[in-house]
Structures are given as structure tokens and as C-alpha cells.
């Protein structure tokens, strides 16, 4: 589902590469933690998959997209098959919960009757039924992240990228969010989550890919956060 082949990324602003000859493969339906200290290349990794960046060297594949080589015109198609969740939720503050989720479908031109049908379904899936008409500021942090996940998942992406999704949440709420991500993973969606959260990684016992200074230094099938520290 995701494959990187000898990928390096050098930014003009820094002599040290953000990613240094990284090769890794993640299969369909996998749940993978991407860990490592700040500046280890996690964000660059995610940005390459979304084609926010192109690699300086190497090839990137997501599903059957040759991400680094594809024309700009096809980039929207790629992004429609990837869902994204962030630490800061990135909700539209002037729209209700349902409108936030619907927005993701509106802007890719989905017909009205589809939107009306699938938005309540996905809100129920993330446990927000009954809160469709709330504004984001009326919700707790955990609920806001659920809205973001609903928005990321409403178009049934093949891959869900989560960049520190629990970074702003307390431990209990974080656990709830992880359960939700697991549930989404069970529908066959590949989930790639960048995180600093030891306890979550340790309790989930999923595949762990650790980056340090742009290189993969560990790739455990059922890993924990703190090995070798």
C-alpha cells in the first residue's frame, strides 16, 4: 500500500538530509507507528506520501500511484485516497460538525444526496451522533479530534495518515482516539501514525518504525516505544 525505495530528501535550508536513503514497505490494512525525536524526518515522511514534497532521490508509491513522478493534475486523485488527521484538528471554526465533515465531500464534487447519506453514518461511526449541529468550540478536544477523523475517513480512504493525533489530548481521551483508529484500521484501511506517545505505542503492540536523523533505525513487527533507550 505504501512503499518507499531509497528515498532521500534534502531541503535547501539544511545541509543534513531530512530523510536519508529510506526504504520501507507497509501493506494493506497494516497499523504502523512512525516514531522518533523531533527533526528525525517523520513529518517529511508523511509530506512525501501526500506529495506536499517530492523526494530528492528515490521513489514513493501509495496504492498504485507513483507519487514522486505523477503529474500535478493527478495529485488530487492521490489525496482523495489518503485521509489526514493532525495534532491541531484543523477544523473550520465557522462550520458545524456535520458541515465540517460535509466540506471534505463538497470540495471534491460529491453529489448532495450522497453527502446527506454518508455524513450521519460516519458521525455515528466516530461516536458523534447527536452532535452534528454543534460548533467545534462547543466540543472537547477529544470530540474535535473525532470530527477530524470523521472528515478524514468519510471518503473511505485507502490510507489514513495521523500526525500526532493525541498530542493535544489527555491520556484517557487519547485511548478513546486510539480505539477509534483501530476500528478504522479493522475496516481494511492502512493507518500510519506519527507519534511521541510512549504509553500508546507500548500498549498497542503494533508495528513500529523508528526514524533517527532521517534514517530508519528500527522496524519491529510488534514493537514498543522505548527499546534501546
Amino acid at each position, binding site marked *: 500500500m505504501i512503499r518507499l525505495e531509497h528515498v532521500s530528501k534534502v531541503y535547501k535550508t539544511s545541509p543534513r538530509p531530512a530523510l536519508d536513503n529510506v526504504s520501507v514497505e507497509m501493506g494493506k490494512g497494516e497499523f504502523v507507528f512512525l516514531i522518533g525525536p523531533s527533526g528525525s524526518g517523520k513529518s517529511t515522511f508523511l509530506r512525501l506520501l*501526500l506529495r506536499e514534497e517530492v523526494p530528492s532521490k528515490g521513489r514513493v508509491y501509495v496504492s498504485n500511484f507513483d507519487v514522486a513522478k505523477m503529474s*500535478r493534475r493527478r*495529485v*488530487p*486523485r*492521490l*489525496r*482523495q*485516497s*489518503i485521509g*489526514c488527521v493532525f495534532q491541531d484538528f*484543523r477544523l*473550520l471554526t465557522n462550520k458545524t460538525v456535520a458541515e465540517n465533515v460535509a*466540506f*471534505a465531500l*463538497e*470540495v*471534491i*464534487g460529491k453529489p*448532495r444526496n450522497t453527502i446527506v447519506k454518508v455524513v450521519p453514518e460516519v458521525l455515528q461511526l466516530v461516536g458523534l451522533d447527536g452532535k452534528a449541529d454543534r460548533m467545534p468550540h462547543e466540543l472537547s478536544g477529544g470530540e474535535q479530534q473525532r470530527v477530524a477523523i470523521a*472528515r478524514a475517513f468519510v*471518503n473511505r480512504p485507502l490510507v489514513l495518515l495521523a500526525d500526532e493525533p493525541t498530542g493535544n489530548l489527555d491520556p484517557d481521551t487519547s485511548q478513546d482516539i486510539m480505539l477509534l483508529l483501530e476500528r478504522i484500521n479493522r475496516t481494511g484501511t492502512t493507518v500510519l501514525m506519527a507519534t511521541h506517545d510512549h504509553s500508546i505505542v507500548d500498549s498497542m503492540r503494533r508495528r513500529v518504525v523508528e526514524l533517527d536523523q532521517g534514517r530508519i533505525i528500527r522496524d519491529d513487527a510488534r514493537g514498543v516505544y522505548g527499546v534501546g533507550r
Partner: protein
Amino acid sequence: MRTSFVFSEVVTGLRRNVTMTIAMILTTAISLFLFGVGLLIVLMVGRMQDDYLSQLEVSVLLTSEVSANDKDCTQQPCAGLRSALETTSGVESVVYENREKGYERFKKIFEAQPELVKLARPEAIPSTFRVKLEDPERADVIVQAFTGKAGVKSVNDQGQVLSRLSDFLTGVRDGVLALAVLQAFAALLLISNTIQLSAYTRRTEVNIMRLVGATRWYTQLPFLIEAVVAGIIGAVGAVGLLAVFKLFLLDRVLGDLFRANIFSPLNLLDVLLLSPVLLGVSVLISALTGYVTLRLYVRL
């Protein structure tokens, strides 16, 4: 493409930067108005030349000696001058108007000012050859050939008066068009600036749109339409300004000249006929500016 979505985005965008939007509309309107004034002057000059060119004459005024003694132009030098004029190439017709006829005409022209007519004596009016040319712009030939000949007092080319008038109008037109270009440049920068601002204030939306895979068109269209809508409002404003300009300024200042047929009159229909031109120019420029701005400055 969901039109209701795009439309609501456009309205939000225009409302959010309301001061910039107003500035953008006003500059566009003023620029287009000046452009319109320029076009009206072009129209007026063209029409004036059409109207007058065919009627233009060269007048060969005869000395008072000839005027007094040779009523029917049968003696020399009058008869000689006549045949010389008639045989000059490019001359269409020659009409001899003696002192009495000239005086009649004078009285008729100045009917409205009897005191002027009272003052004038027939003796002051010279006999005249009224020469019509096939090409009125080649009046120089007659002026040069006949000035200073025996019996000729002077040669007047009406075309010169007209060309002085149209030179003046052409100058005004060039000045107005230059101003229009300057204003258009300001409008252009404002449009570009407003779009950048608009994209910046909506960066969260735009970022989300990019992430969920909205196409470039979908993301950019609201901004483009914003610019075009402002352009359209600007053009409508410009047409309004032109109508006001025509009714309250042009008609008041030049009204007498229009009525006296010295200037070819402009009517509201002319302004109306200009409006699609202004609208088209406005839409084209704002859309183009918007498109280029989005390409160059805004990462969508």
C-alpha cells in the same frame, strides 16, 4: 462542480475583505469610466469627421474691388480665377457667391443676433468662390495655388478649423486614455492584492481542500469568481458614471455646441453601446489578473 458551494464561498470571500473589495471595485470603475470617456471621444471625433468632411469647403475670398464691381463674375480677374479653379484637379464644384448673396447668407446665419446684423454692411462682405473638393484633406493645393493671386483677398480652409478641433479632442482623448491605463494598473494591483489577501484569510479552508484532494479548479474558482464579480460591479459602476457624465457634464458644457451642430452629439445609446465593451474588458482583465496571481503567489 457544486455551484451553490462555489457561490457561497464567493460571497463569504467578498464580505470578509469588504474594504479591499470596495477599493477594488472603485478603482476598476474609475479606470473603466476613463476608458469609456476615451472611447466616447474617439466616437465623437470619428462622427464629426464623417459629418463635416463631405461638407467642407475652401472659400476663396475676393478683394473688395472685385466684390464691388463684378457682380456676375464676367470680367477679369474673376472669370479667370473661376476657370482656373474649375480646371484644378480634385475640384468637385465651384460656386460663385457675390456680395449680395453673401450678405443674405450672413443675415440668415446671425438671425438670432439682430444687433450684429445691423452693424454689418454689405460692403464688408466679400464675393466668394465656394470650392468643394473631392478630397477635403487636400485643400492645401488650393490654398497654396490661389493665395496672393490678383483679385484674391485670402483663401480659407474650413478643414483647418475642423482639424484644430479634432486635434484638441484627440489630445484630450490621449490624456484620458493615459489616465485610464494608470488607473487600470492600480486596479490590477488591487485585484491581485485582494486575491492574495482573500486566499490568506481562507488558508485553513484552502489547506483542507488541498488535503482532501479538491482539484485546483475547485480551490481556485471561488477566488477567480470573486475577482470577476468585482470586475462586473466595477463595469456597471463605470457605465453609471458615464451616463452621469454625459447627462450632467457633457450635455451642460457642450450642449450649445451640440445644438449648433458644431460637435456631433452623443446620446445615451452610445453610452449603452459601450457598456458591453467595458464589461468584456473588465471581466477579461480581472479574470486574467486573478488567474496569474493564483498561479504566481498563492500555493493552492
